[in-house]
């Protein structure tokens, strides 16, 4: 059975239908990349999975448990779903270590020593072994995003959601963040990634989901999608990322 299952999901903001009957599933250890033009509903989809948005219809099932539109215990569900998004979202009044410890200690009531050890291990692995006492304002964008990833990982989530985590970064910092994600994928983390980095998508994905206007247009393995997408809209979309048509 799939770890994460989305079935017939519908979401609108007032009259604006943003997700129109979206269904797909993600198996344990799988890396799925969601591509699609701006405004097609990618962020909204991830936010629904994390319970930041309520849905109008359909179900989201994680590990056999329906997690959509839970009201009372949504914060318990969120502990199983790690999320990192585009804007630097560290807590500015806490140093790196406290940022990381907050969730595991206050939400999960875990042993401090154990979490600190885990946090230090992760920080070392993402190349920030000496930053645990720094404040977010003292870090570069790429460093902040790596800390944000560690913060989500230390909750030991079952699935990680990434929404354009490199979109606001200077080009030379993009790589360090993508490398961290690549290592995670190799470790077998289940991941659902929204990105505009096509080379990265191709390298990391087990499967590509291409969306347009709130629906899934095609679901393909990356080799196929990037060389020869099944849909016309997929082809059009990929042309945005090359300059072939402009060749003199």
């Amino acid at each position, binding site marked *: 059975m799939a770890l994460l299952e989305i079935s017939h999901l519908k979401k609108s903001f007032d009259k604006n239908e943003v997700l129109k009957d979206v269904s797909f599933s993600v198996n344990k250890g799988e890396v799925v990349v969601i591509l699609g033009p701006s405004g097609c509903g990618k962020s909204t989809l991830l936010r629904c999975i994390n319970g930041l948005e309520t849905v109008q219809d359909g179900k989201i099932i994680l590990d056999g448990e329906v997690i959509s539109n839970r009201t009372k215990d*949504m*914060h*318990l569900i*969120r502990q199983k779903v790690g999320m990192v998004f585009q804007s630097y979202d560290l807590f*500015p009044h806490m140093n790196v270590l406290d940022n990381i410890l*907050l969730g595991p200690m*206050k*939400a999960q009531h875990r042993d401090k020593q154990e979490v600190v050890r885990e946090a230090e291990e992760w920080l070392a692995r993402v190349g920030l072994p000496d930053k645990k006492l720094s404040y977010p*304002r003292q870090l570069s964008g790429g460093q902040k995003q790596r800390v944000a990833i560690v913060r989500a990982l230390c909750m030991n989530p079952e699935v990680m959601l990434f929404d354009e985590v490199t979109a606001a970064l200077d080009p030379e910092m993009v790589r360090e963040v993508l490398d961290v994600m690549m290592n995670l994928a190799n470790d077998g983390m289940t991941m659902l990634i929204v990105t505009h980095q096509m080379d990265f998508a191709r390298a990391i994905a087990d499967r590509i989901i291409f969306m347009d206007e709130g629906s899934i247009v095609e679901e393909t393995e990356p080799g196929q999608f990037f060389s020869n997408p099944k849909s016309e809209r997929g082809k059009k979309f990929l042309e945005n990322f090359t300059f072939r048509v402009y060749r003199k």
Partner: protein
Amino acid sequence: MDFEFIKQVIPLYIEAAGLTLRIALVGILFSFAVGLFCALIRYYKVPLLSPITGFYIELSRNTPLLIQLFFLYFALPNLGIKLSSFQCCIIGLTFLGGSYMEETFRSALETVSKVQIESGQCIGLSGLQVMRYVVLPQAVSVSIPGFCANVMFLIKETSVFSIVAVADLMYVAKDLIGLYYKTDEALWLLAISYFILLLPVSAISGYAERRLRYAQFGSN
């Protein structure tokens, strides 16, 4: 200037300053509590309570403290509620200060961005935990300058208390003028007393504001 006279009446001023300060401190403490409570109600838009709070704030901001005190001291007894002058002052100051504190705290709470709140939710914090660990600490430091300004404002407002027969600074000054016609001396002492009361508060507020600017977290 009659310095002999001044020397004689200084103890009266010190005593009155003590009383003024006592009322101000208690009033400010209550204002703080009322303000924070109302700010949370309005921040969370609690049904029913939020509009009631809004009405209180309008009422409090749009009537002078003098009138509020008159009402408490002279009108309420007709309804069978008898309050001492001291109680009137505390209630009046709290009624006034609560709304000012509310505005300060609520706008500080609202400076904490939605992304911050969602980040807190994403790591599994409950709504209350997000408030306690993410929103409040950031809002508190933002609200310090406004809070200090309110404290100074409220201390200054205590100068109307004499109308309900509290022997505060203003009362002593008026009394001395009435008894001895020493207008200059009495008024100088009055101004200096308030100055001495307010100076530490404004120093603290200046310091806090500078600290805040250096500690500016977030951006960059």
